């Protein structure tokens, strides 16, 4: 039919779909799933870093970290809004998150055990997120792409801050350097897994690429990321916990150690060190805040009524 033809033509021309445009139901569903998961990741992702706000070791770092975690809340909000343009409601999405029905990036189910983890998250996790997200700025669904543009700008700022935290630690006392190395050791593999399973085990990717949501395969993105951090880690004076890591000149590929995809799948399924904790924190915040949201809604209702009455009288 006409809608589908227009959609296909737009995609073929690498154009942008707007909310009012016709789109296939699968495209809509895929996007709702992806965008809402992305939003959940921002919101849950606040927790591991918020864990160090009250204990940040200098006031400057405290301020930077507070601002960063806030930015993540902001990203969550843009993304929920983007998903809402596809017909999902924020309440539904939040409900699904709290009930454990929705996914989010499994990296946030690892704890932040030391201050250096805040640096490692900035450098590696935000770094991987950027590698993933920069191509999403050109996603075929326009509101998602626009949200990504805004988010990527802030993320790269965050990544630099994380790098700077690690750099300072790496140039600090021996204990500080050890703390930095330990954090890198723990976040390296989970960060590499953020790009998802190897291409041959990622069946949904093909359709997403055909729809111009995804632009590069998981493995391609992982390659780029590895290439990037291999250089950066030298500047830090730290090492990546991967003795097998090397560049294969023939295939032009980075060879890295085998990743533990069993653990990855376990964590996705809810068995990470912090899955239960992250969801419970969100649930408690939501439940404890119910009376506030109800009050705000009731107040708004009363204000509406007053306005209506006033305009009624005026008429």
């Amino acid at each position, binding site marked *: 039919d006409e809608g589908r033809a227009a959609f296909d033509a737009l995609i073929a021309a690498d154009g942008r779909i707007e909310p009012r445009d016709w789109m296939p139901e699968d495209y809509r569903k895929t996007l709702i799933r992806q965008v809402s998961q992305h939003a959940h990741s921002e*919101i849950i992702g*606040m*927790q591991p870093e*918020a864990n160090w*706000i*009250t*204990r*940040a*070791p*200098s*006031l*400057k*770092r*405290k*301020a930077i970290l*507070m*601002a960063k*975690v*806030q930015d993540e*809340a*902001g990203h*969550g*909000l843009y993304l*929920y809004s983007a998903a809402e343009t596809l017909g999902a409601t924020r309440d539904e999405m939040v409900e699904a998150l709290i009930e454990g029905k929705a996914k989010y990036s499994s990296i946030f189910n690892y704890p932040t055990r030391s*201050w250096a983890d805040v640096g490692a998250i900035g450098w590696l996790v935000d770094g991987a997120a950027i590698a993933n997200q920069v191509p999403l700025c050109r996603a075929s669904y326009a509101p998602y792409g626009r949200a990504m543009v805004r988010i990527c700008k802030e993320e790269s700022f965050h990544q630099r801050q994380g790098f700077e*935290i690690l750099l*300072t*630690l790496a140039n*600090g*006392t021996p*204990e*500080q350097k050890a703390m930095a190395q330990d954090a890198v050791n723990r976040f390296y593999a989970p960060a590499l897994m953020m790009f998802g399973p190897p291409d041959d085990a990622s069946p949904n990717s093909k359709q997403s690429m055909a729809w111009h949501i995804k632009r590069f395969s998981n493995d391609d993105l992982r390659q780029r990321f590895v290439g990037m951090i291999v250089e950066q880690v030298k500047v830090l004076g730290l090492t990546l916990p991967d003795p097998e890591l090397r560049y294969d000149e023939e295939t032009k590929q980075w060879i890295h150690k085998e990743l533990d995809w069993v653990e990855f799948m376990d964590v996705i399924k809810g068995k990470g060190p912090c899955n239960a904790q992250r969801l419970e*924190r969100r649930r*408690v*915040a939501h439940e*404890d*805040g*119910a*009376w*506030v*949201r*109800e*009050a*705000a*809604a*009731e*107040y708004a209702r*009363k204000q509406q009524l007053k306005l209506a009455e006033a305009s009624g009288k005026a008429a």
Partner: protein
Amino acid sequence: AADNGEYAIWLGDDSLILAQRLAWWISRAPEMEEDIALGNIGLDLLGHARSFMTYGGKSIGKTEDDLAYWREEDEFRSVHLVEVPGQDFGLTIARQLFFSVYLELLYTRLLNSTDATIAAISAKALKEVEYHVDHATQWMLRLGGGTEESVRRIQHSLEVMWPYAHELFVDEPLHERLAATGVAVLPSSLKEDWDQRVTAVIEESGLGMPVAKDALCRGRVGEHTEHLGYLLAEMQVLARKFPGATW
């Protein structure tokens, strides 16, 4: 000048401790918008604290971090109001109302401080504090004009925070010395305006003025609530494990 610095540290202490309290809300607020709003207010206060402490520390050769991380509990000069945990949205809003209105009045007056640095920091802070007042006011209206439960809770919150509010207006000898030279404002001189402003918000919210009695508070001489020790233990733990380290 030592007095000026000491006064700046007092101003910084209140904001630092309250920023630490507000930071707790980030990732725990009733709405995601409030994670951002409360975080922003905390961040503003932290910024003010840093400016005041950097200035205040100068005359005694201390950095903002020396002051925040290496003073003992009885060296802090914060008021009790900012030390109370307030891990309940109603409590936080009640405190924000009391404290933000006070800060707005204070910084407005400090625009004319004869200490140029204090005047400049106050000028910058004032714009932000105006937003804090507005934020607290809007929530007072919503909670006071919301549900039966929200009315009950915010009214109770006002009662719980009220005993600590009066300490904001206690004149200490330092204030008196500095008011004489036009550096500081006598806290007591803000009380009348504060009463009027706060009363107006409470009344507009359809709530009753608190009847709770004033608590004996002496934060300005280093006698603190039982809460401050816990807050400092957490805030200072990491910095103190690495004396002399750079972050």
